[in-house]
């Protein structure tokens, strides 16, 4: 049955090889088939995780220091499902855009499948080095995908991302090397004897991951990259691929963090600063995609609150928010991509009357925006409530205030967009939609946004899965 775990990585990889080998007119069909096929393996995998708590697999039966060890727990399963959903929705958008005749389709589809594969591989890795390989792959593929936008700002953004991503990798790899030197093991598990790691190694790894996860103030690559990337790429990066580093950060932190240091405070403070800075920056952006990108900066900060609040309930809340944020953010990026292609611009000032011209997109933005603000009954409220509960119990007033403030600040930029798209008096003659997006692309974005809302009314199953994932270091 652990074959299901292998399928999660090998099916998209097989599709990737098929796309490369087959003539380009089949690329799109094969890519879609692969992306539809691999989530099927998630069904037995989810059942197994629910029954056993975690599923592990040693590829080729090599023991862990040599071979590749994979492990899936509740958080991984939830993130994998998110990856499946967002990748499919993004494919619907990309399918209309990168049709086989178009220049760039030849490079786009293999990269797109590689990104999904790399994300899955990084998510399931059970040791620090495989994680490094997965993260590195994600960075490189993302850079290439951002560059497929094929214009100067996109290339500049891709270059910047590449350089900073490499820097992050370097830090992380240094840390991993030190860990191996000290413990002789790279396992992503509680170290033998429970000895805490050398804090230099920990700080190096965390710094590397913080660059990749775009934690303020190491986020500088993010707004340009997400803002310039083609819509589906931005969606997948912001929702899942870019969050892999954050998930890794959580895991490493809770496994290896030493007691009694100021580090949780420091990380929490960075998170709070990210919430404030990201939201304020999102408020003043003039382009929709950049608003959504800066919102990611803020949301990463929000997700870091789990570090100072270390507890299973906080972990559940953060995991849930990761999922909900993924739905909402991907929906917003896809809607923004539809708008950009249809109207030729995503300047916020030109979005008036959007509810008439592109009602599905306006509706998507509204639903996803409200989810990000965390208003009930959306999914955004559930994770927030969980984290708030923990913050209250632990008397973590600073984090409590940050979380509450985060809602208000995100309301400021979300409602600015909503007021502009739906309630601003229409400019004369701007009723036309030059290139109406295919209905499927609009619906894909809407469906993701709806997922983010509906899951707030039925959060039970996801929360139960996440309860199984509470990492070893948290008690």
């Amino acid at each position: 049955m652990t074959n299901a775990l292998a399928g999660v990585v090998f099916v998209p990889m097989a599709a990737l090889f098929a796309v490369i080998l087959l003539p380009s007119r089949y690329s799109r069909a094969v890519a879609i088939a692969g992306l539809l096929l691999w989530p099927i393996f998630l069904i037995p995998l989810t059942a197994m995780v629910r029954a056993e708590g975690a599923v592990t697999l040693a590829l080729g039966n090599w023991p862990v220091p040599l071979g590749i060890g994979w492990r899936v727990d509740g958080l991984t399963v939830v993130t994998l499902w998110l990856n499946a959903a967002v990748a499919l929705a993004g494919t619907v958008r990309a399918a209309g855009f990168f049709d086989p005749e178009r220049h760039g389709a030849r490079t786009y589809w293999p990269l797109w499948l590689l990104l999904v594969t790399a994300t899955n591989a990084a998510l399931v890795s059970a040791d620090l080095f495989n994680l490094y390989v997965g993260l590195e792959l994600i960075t490189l593929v993302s850079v290439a995908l951002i560059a497929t936008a094929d214009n100067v700002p996109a290339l500049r953004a891709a270059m910047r991302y590449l350089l900073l991503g490499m820097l992050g990798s370097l830090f992380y790899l240094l840390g991993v090397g030190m860990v191996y030197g000290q413990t002789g093991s790279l396992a992503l598990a509680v170290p033998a004897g429970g000895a805490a790691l050398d804090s230099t190694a920990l700080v190096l790894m965390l710094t590397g991951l913080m660059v990749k996860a775009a934690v303020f103030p190491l986020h500088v690559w993010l707004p340009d990259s997400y803002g310039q990337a083609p819509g589906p790429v931005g969606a997948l990066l912001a929702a899942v691929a870019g969050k892999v580093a954050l998930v890794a950060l959580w895991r490493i932190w809770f496994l290896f963090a030493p007691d009694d240091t100021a580090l949780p405070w420091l990380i929490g403070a960075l998170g709070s600063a990210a919430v404030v800075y990201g939201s304020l920056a999102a408020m003043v952006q003039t382009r929709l995609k950049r608003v959504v990108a800066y919102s990611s900066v803020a949301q990463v900060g929000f997700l870091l609150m789990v570090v100072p609040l270390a507890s299973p309930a906080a972990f559940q809340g953060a995991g849930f928010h990761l999922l909900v944020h993924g739905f909402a953010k991907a929906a917003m990026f896809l809607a923004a991509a539809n708008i950009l292609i249809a109207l030729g611009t995503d300047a916020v000032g030109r979005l008036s009357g959007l509810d008439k011209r592109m009602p599905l997109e306006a509706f998507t933005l509204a639903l996803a925006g409200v989810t990000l603000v965390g208003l009930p009954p959306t999914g955004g409220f559930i994770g927030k409530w969980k984290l708030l509960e923990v913050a209250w119990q632990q008397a973590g007033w600073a984090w409590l205030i940050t979380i509450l403030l985060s809602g208000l600040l995100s309301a400021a930029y979300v409602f600015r967009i909503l007021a502009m798209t739906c309630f601003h008096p229409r400019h004369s003659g701007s009723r036309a939609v030059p290139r109406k997006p295919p209905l499927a692309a609009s619906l894909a974005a809407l469906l993701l946004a709806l997922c983010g809302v509906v899951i707030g009314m039925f959060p039970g199953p996801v929360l139960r899965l996440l309860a199984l994932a509470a990492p070893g270091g948290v008690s």
Partner: protein
Amino acid sequence: MTTPWLNQALPLAVVLVSVVAAVIIFAAGEERRLLRIVVNLVAAGIKFALVVWIGLTVLAGNAPEFRYEILPGQELVLHADALSILFASLSALLWLVTTIYAIAYLERSPNRARFFGFFSLCVTSTMGISMAGNLFTFFLFYELLTLTTWPLVVHSGTPQALAAGRSYLRYTLTGGVLFLAGVLWLYGLAGSVEFTPGGTLSGLGEEYAIQLRVIFVLLVAGMGVKAALVPLHGWLPVAMVAPAPVSALLHAVAVVKAGAFALIRLVEDVYGFELMCELGLQLPLMLLAATTIVFGSVRALQQSSIKRRLAYSTVSQVSYIVLGIATGGLLATAGGMVHLVNQGIMKITLFFCAGVFGLALGVNRVKELDGMGYRAPWTSACFSIAAIGMIGVPPVAGFVTKWYLGSGALAVGQPWVVAVLITSALLNAMYFLPLLKRIWLVRPAPGAGPAEYLGRIEHVALVGSAVVTASLSVAIALLAAHRLSPLSWVLRIASEYFP
């Protein structure tokens, strides 16, 4: 008679029926006018019927209840008790009337699908608020109300409307955050906060007194934003730029009433009146309410726009409810609660009339009201009845409130409340009577003709709505002793708290 299955389904159905309506309205789009009207009216009718049904069930001694564990250990509870029915029946009834009015009012304006969609979602929130069985559920719907009323406030899309929307969000979302902090804290202390007559917190020991006080302040601040308690009332007059049916709705049924209803729940069902007194919170709350009453009336005097004058009047009148609850005792509590209904019906009449003045005669300012009695006699008559009721003159509903509030305050030894009531009545008279004088006693300016309506049906619907609510405001005062009148209903509720 009712099966357990029905007992569960009823509260849920009464909340969901407008969600269904909203989805149909949004999906049908702008052009399907007839479908939209039918869906609106059918949904409002079904909702009213359901509320009556639940009311009869409660009267028969059953307690319909729906429970769903939304988070581990956190339940969504929809529960119908006598107090829920009070608010739910008010909303359902006025909704029906407002829907008819709004259909006629907005007949030729753009974006009607959006308007009526959010209109329906908004009534969903008020139904959820009235049926909420614990503080968590209450909070969910309270926030949903913020979200669904914002599109109505900014509906016209003018710069003023957008500015009003921003101000509305600033106040209500900040209030929501304070509310959330209070809820969270209270859940941390008490585990779960079900609404129970007499409160659930008296079991907590003396050592929690300070925390309970802080939580009370947080919650009152959160709820006071919507109830427009001074100094949290700033959004309300600004929100007057919204179309008249929206103002009617915000003032009479939805937003401010949700705030007032929240405060009733807080005092009676969460803290309990006795605990509130023990914590020394009674007097501050009374003073806050009294200040708001006088302040609102004074500010109303200074307004030259009719709708703004009415808005400040709302600020003042809603605090009667709070004052009654804070004063305590059977009579004052009943007086406060019954004002929930009385003020709703009278204020909606005033806004309906103000809407007609504005739409059909282009009259928006006080000084333009000259001779309105000749130009639009029916509307003017309704306006006058409601205004007289607001002042507290019998036989209109406002008198019932003031009578019970006053005698209740004397009964519990708080005579100064009577002074506040008299001051407010005088101020009410000062800002309403000049309007009535202009309407009836001053000749219209030369060239000012009778009202021009878009069509006969619109005419009947607009004026008819006002006539219905004006008659109601007289009827509930004349029939106050009837077994099913709001007053009898409220006395039944209050006797549960003050046997």
